[in-house]
């Protein structure tokens, strides 16, 4: 028999019973438990083989009489209740019609052929892969890929209790036919969650349990950073049934289409919401663990790491002011390891608001945080205030934000990019080379915020005829010098390069490449003798145009980005060698609708990254980084059914550093994706 209890404490619990009441041990156990059962008959009634007295009690309504043994006697069969209920009565059960079946079929093939490549690539230079990341176990790895078949069962959304269960099937097509071959995977990648709703007068309660619960508490506390979308590479969670609609929305919408979680954090555990309608208040409670709370190695061994969060939100709706104000609490309560009891904690208390006052939108968040781990016991504070004028006020919508966030104001589950080296993904003991949350002195995208930083960001947009212009400009400076490191994002070939050695934070020939899910970063070091605080500038310009070409729709997207890092708070980006690093990136995407069901896409991008002599110098010639990379490619999307499409992409890619001569790769990549929604 499999006796369930906490694995760590199973023995302790048994021993505990043998302690006398004076034993100097305190044992405390808190259990969060959500349980539901549909058709309880099947699981609780097991009275067969009962003794006579039990049968007597239960048989009165079940007596089936039959004349067979003798004309005078009556033979009756007393039908005891069986496990599945009574034979003669229709069971009360959830009809199959009440269960919704939906899902996705995603068959992906990626072929990569490299003429030049990094020596530490985990695959050979020519590689077939049937998942997003090569050598990853689909559905059984830390974001290792998406399954070929995602089969979701859920019940009616109108019912009081809901469940959503996803069966994920995948195969890496190794050619092995054995059923036990590990390339065949059955798992549950997204859905194993249950929910309940209750309403009692003006109070409404909902509880969700299980996983994955994509959860957002506030920008600072819980809700992971959003990045700009790539317009060419397809994302696994792409939900568009109509391929060209994707590009049309890139054209029409000002906001990012978004990643899988829409800026939320993946949570296993519980989320409860209580709406008190007369007070226009919502109370939110969160308990569980996010994907950054513990390492994969410690994920299921009872590692002491948990996340608590809560929010009290008040809706304000008056004649002149409308919006929400919230108080937020977040805590990661963990220990450095499983037995020594050394705390590894960080928390935040914040207030956020989103109010429209006289047509002007004010939003922001402010709060304090604490850190308690072996390397640091301290507190920090931070705020971000934003003012927006939307189209109801001006034809030139604009937003200005100022933020100032201390280095000890840190939450790896929030949107503040982390520079605090004691706060690490997976816990304090995580090695730097595996800490995907470390963003020391990052050249962040416009609109993103980081700790140990203060700065402005200005964003706006203007429509001129069919042109749509979006721009963003960000200036920031570190608050104190904590590291001689700069982190930069490679935008060209980001996905392709992240597949070279996924999840490792010190890859490439010089150990500087950081691989993320769909993204690639690089860290370089700066001269430790340089004085002055680093300043960061970022400029984004997105030009969008839609027209008819040969009577067919054409969408053109052109993104231009320039980043610089230098000493000091500079209002204008540094264009000269005074900058530690200068990064220029541009890509252009053309999506052309050839027919109702199919379109073609062309994409090209270039990127240059130059360092000065205060940064890493090449061991080959003593000069700083001088990188040039490009990518160009074409694609065909064919929607052969309203819920199905096939997508082909091919691109040529190249990257070369003039001075770090080993830092180069060149090759081609093709991928084809069949996606069917049902």
């Amino acid at each position: 028999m499999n006796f369930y209890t906490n694995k760590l404490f199973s023995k302790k619990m048994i021993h505990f019973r043998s302690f006398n009441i004076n034993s100097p041990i305190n044992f405390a156990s808190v259990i969060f438990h959500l349980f539901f059962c549909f058709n309880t008959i099947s699981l609780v009634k097991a009275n067969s083989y009962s003794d006579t007295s039990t049968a007597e009690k239960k048989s009165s309504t079940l007596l089936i009489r039959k004349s067979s043994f003798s004309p005078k006697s009556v033979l009756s069969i007393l039908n005891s209740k069986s496990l599945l209920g009574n034979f003669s009565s229709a069971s009360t059960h959830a009809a199959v019609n009440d269960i919704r079946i939906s899902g996705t079929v995603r068959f992906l093939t990626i072929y990569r052929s490299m003429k030049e490549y990094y020596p530490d690539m985990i695959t050979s230079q020519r590689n077939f892969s049937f998942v997003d990341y090569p050598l990853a176990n689909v559905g059984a790895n830390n974001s290792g890929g998406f399954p070929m078949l995602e089969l979701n069962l859920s019940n009616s959304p109108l019912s009081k209790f809901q469940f959503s269960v996803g069966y994920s099937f995948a195969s890496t097509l190794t050619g092995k036919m054995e059923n036990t071959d590990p390339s065949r995977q059955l798992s549950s990648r997204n859905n194993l969650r249950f929910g309940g709703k209750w309403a009692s007068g003006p109070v409404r309660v909902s509880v969700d349990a299980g996983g994955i619960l994509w959860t957002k508490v506030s920008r600072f506390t819980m809700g992971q950073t959003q990045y700009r979308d790539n317009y060419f590479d397809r994302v696994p969670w792409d939900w568009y049934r109509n391929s060209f609609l994707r590009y049309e929305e890139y054209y029409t919408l000002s906001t990012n289409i978004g990643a899988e979680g829409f800026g939320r954090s993946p949570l296993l555990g519980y989320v409860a919401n209580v709406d008190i309608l007369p007070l226009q208040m919502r109370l939110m409670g969160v308990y569980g663990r996010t994907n950054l709370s513990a390492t994969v190695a410690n994920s299921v061994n009872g590692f002491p790491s948990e996340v608590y969060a809560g929010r009290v939100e008040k809706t304000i709706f008056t004649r002149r002011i409308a919006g929400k104000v919230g108080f937020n609490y977040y805590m990661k309560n963990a220990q450095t390891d499983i037995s020594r009891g050394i705390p590894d904690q960080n928390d935040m208390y914040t207030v956020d608001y989103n109010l429209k006052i006289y047509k002007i939108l004010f939003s922001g968040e402010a709060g304090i945080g604490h850190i308690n781990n072996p390397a640091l016991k301290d507190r920090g504070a931070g705020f971000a205030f934003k003012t927006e004028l939307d189209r109801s006020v001006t034809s030139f919508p604009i937003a200005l934000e100022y933020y100032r966030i201390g280095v000890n104001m840190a939450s790896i589950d929030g949107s503040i990019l982390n520079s605090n080296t004691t706060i690490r993904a997976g816990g304090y003991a995580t090695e730097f080379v595996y800490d995907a949350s470390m963003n020391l002195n990052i050249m962040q995208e416009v609109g993103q915020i980081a700790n140990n930083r203060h700065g402005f960001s200005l964003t706006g947009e203007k429509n001129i005829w069919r042109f749509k212009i979006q721009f963003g400009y960000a200036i920031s400076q570190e608050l104190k010098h904590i590291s001689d490191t700069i982190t930069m994002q490679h935008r060209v070939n980001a996905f392709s390069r992240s597949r070279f050695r996924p999840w490792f934070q010190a890859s490439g020939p010089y150990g500087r490449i950081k691989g993320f899910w769909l993204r690639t970063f690089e860290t370089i070091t700066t001269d430790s003798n340089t004085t002055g605080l680093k300043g960061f500038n970022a400029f984004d310009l997105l030009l969008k145009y839609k027209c008819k070409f040969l009577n067919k729709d054409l969408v053109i997207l052109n993104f231009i980005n320039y980043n610089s890092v230098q000493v000091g708070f500079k209002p204008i980006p540094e264009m000269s060698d005074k900058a530690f690093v200068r990064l220029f990136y541009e890509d252009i995407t053309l999506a052309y609708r050839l027919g109702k069901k199919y379109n073609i896409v062309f994409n090209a991008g270039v990127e240059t990254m130059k360092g000065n002599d205060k940064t890493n110098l090449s061991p080959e010639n003593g000069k700083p980084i001088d990188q040039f990379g490009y990518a160009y490619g074409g694609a065909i999307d064919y929607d052969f059914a309203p819920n199905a499409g096939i997508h082909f992409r091919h691109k040529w890619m190249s990257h070369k550093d003039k001075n770090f001569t080993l830092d180069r790769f060149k090759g081609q990549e093709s991928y084809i994706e069949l996606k069917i929604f049902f």
Partner: protein
Amino acid sequence: MNNKVGTLVLLFISQTYLSQAQATKSQFYFTGLGRAVVTSNQLGGNLTTGDTLSPKRGVSGYALFDLQPNLTLNDDLKANAILRMRNPFGSFFGDKTYFEFRQFQIIGRIRKIVEYEIGDIYLGNMSKYTMFLPDEMYNRYEADVFKMRRSLPDYENFIIGNMWRQQGVKTNSRFGFNKYIKEVGINTFGVRTNPTNETNIPDRVLAGFRSDVKQSDYFWAGFNYVGMLDIPIDRATINYTNHVTTGEAKLTLNKETFFAEWSGELGSSSYRFVQVLDDSTVSYKDFFYETGIKGSYKPAKILLFANLRNVGPQFSSPSAQTMRLNI
């Protein structure tokens, strides 16, 4: 023995065929259970001071979903299985999710006389000396909050009441008469508790039956047999048998103002264990009896009872142990 088994199997096959032929209202539907549990434990106190090895805190749990497809071919045949999906707390995006085949059952009825169950079945409540899974100790009056916690391992370990979860077959029949006696019940079962390794460890089976007669509302009597034994094979290194036989009776007088009952059970066991390698045999026999009376004066809502029990030290009944052990 083989002939009996063959006949039994043939009977089931033919019955299944007949049932399918006569199917009039087949149904297929799902039932199930979902659960998400997170347990946060903390250990403290003087004994843990300076202890750097024992875990002081732990967080663990799981989310599981038991999906049970049910097939009802007709009034005389049902089948079901439970397919479990379980994701341990802390593992993301499908990592360490596992699937399990938790239950399979076929339940049927032969000519409306014999009800049978095959597969994962529950056995219990014959008598406390023959087939009985005792309750855990010291929790009879516990608070509901602890009962909820106890329900988790109970469910995981298939504990429902005082029944054992086993794999095999059981039958159940009850016959009613209109003269001399009211009812006769016959229950049988056979399960395998340990499989052979096809070399030197034999199959071990547990089988038994119970027959009871209800003469009237005043008198009831029953006979129980449970045997646990190894199926001999030539190279077996052990040979184990244990037989338990008991008889029960009950006299009841239930009037409007009072209730009185006498009950008793008497039985014996014989145990034999042979170690083939060293040619040693351990065997013993013993007996037990238990008798009791109880009476109630209903207007006063008072129940008085007295019991006398004598269980020999060598009485052995493996399917009715007096404490729940090893879980």
